[in-house]
């Protein structure tokens, strides 16, 4: 299996496990807060890009910032 297949397979497993967990009450809470945690992790690791977006310099408007 090539890398793309492994990547796709891994994501499929993650999605299936998440769906199975959501079926139960406790699993739903786990997935819910796991997703929020992932969001926080994403924001922290991409803080620079987030700052660029939120500041004037990050806005591209037909070449005029």
């Amino acid at each position, binding site marked *: 299996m090539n890398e793309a297949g492994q990547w796709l397979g891994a994501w499929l497993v993650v999605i299936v496990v998440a769906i199975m967990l*959501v079926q139960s*009450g406790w699993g739903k809470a786990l997935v819910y807060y796991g997703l929020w945690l992932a*969001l926080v992790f994403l924001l922290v690791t991409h803080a620079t890009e987030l700052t660029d977006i939120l500041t004037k310099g990050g806005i591209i408007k037909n070449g*005029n910032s």
Partner: protein
Amino acid sequence: MSKRQGSMATIDDALNQTIVVNENPIAPPPDASAPHAAPGVNAPTPVTGEKPETRTLTAEEIAEEKDKSEREKLIDEAIKERERQEQERKDAFKASANNVVDKTGQVWRGATARLGSIPTPGSIILPLVALAVFFFMLIPVNGHTRFVWLWLVLTGNADITGGGASGDFGNTNGGASGDFGTPSYLSQFPQATTIPIVPGGASSSALNAVLNSQGNVEQPARNNGFLAQFPQAQVTPINPTFFTGPEDTV
């Protein structure tokens, strides 16, 4: 010494007694149903006509028999006691194991019940959408985030073209495409300065040679060693156009 300890000592003594086995057993009685028996094996005892001798037991022998039966009784009791103790040990272990399983189940049920009772406002959809939005907004691909690429495409500043770096660079369908020299592309880089390159103004001698050739790239390229590796190569002269992006800004 308690009564029980005394009993146990008696039992142990009885168990430690050696059993004497008679190594010269009496020959079994004649067996008429075994006609093929070896001669002399089940030979009949000669009939003498005398009555078998009877013997009365002495008081000592009676006492000994009594002791023997008493001992056997005690041994039976001891065996039963040991079996009971063994059973008790097994029951205790089973009860302990069941207790552990019950306790674990209680902890698991308690934890899952607590987790299940935690509210999930907005359901799973809310964090999922938020994550997707920030994913498209923050993770850059080829220099821009997916949202920026969408914006550029919608505003006409970027094109979605087929092909790409396919490796088939000899035909006109593949290859990296894009009109990098157009004002709409350059407008993304307001600080970029386009420097017209005149013959002799380039930074590398190879590029100057090309510029000086006035479109005939064959001879300068051959002189610079690249095409010299391919003496039979046919080069079609082209009219080069140059673009300086932000990287070339002085």
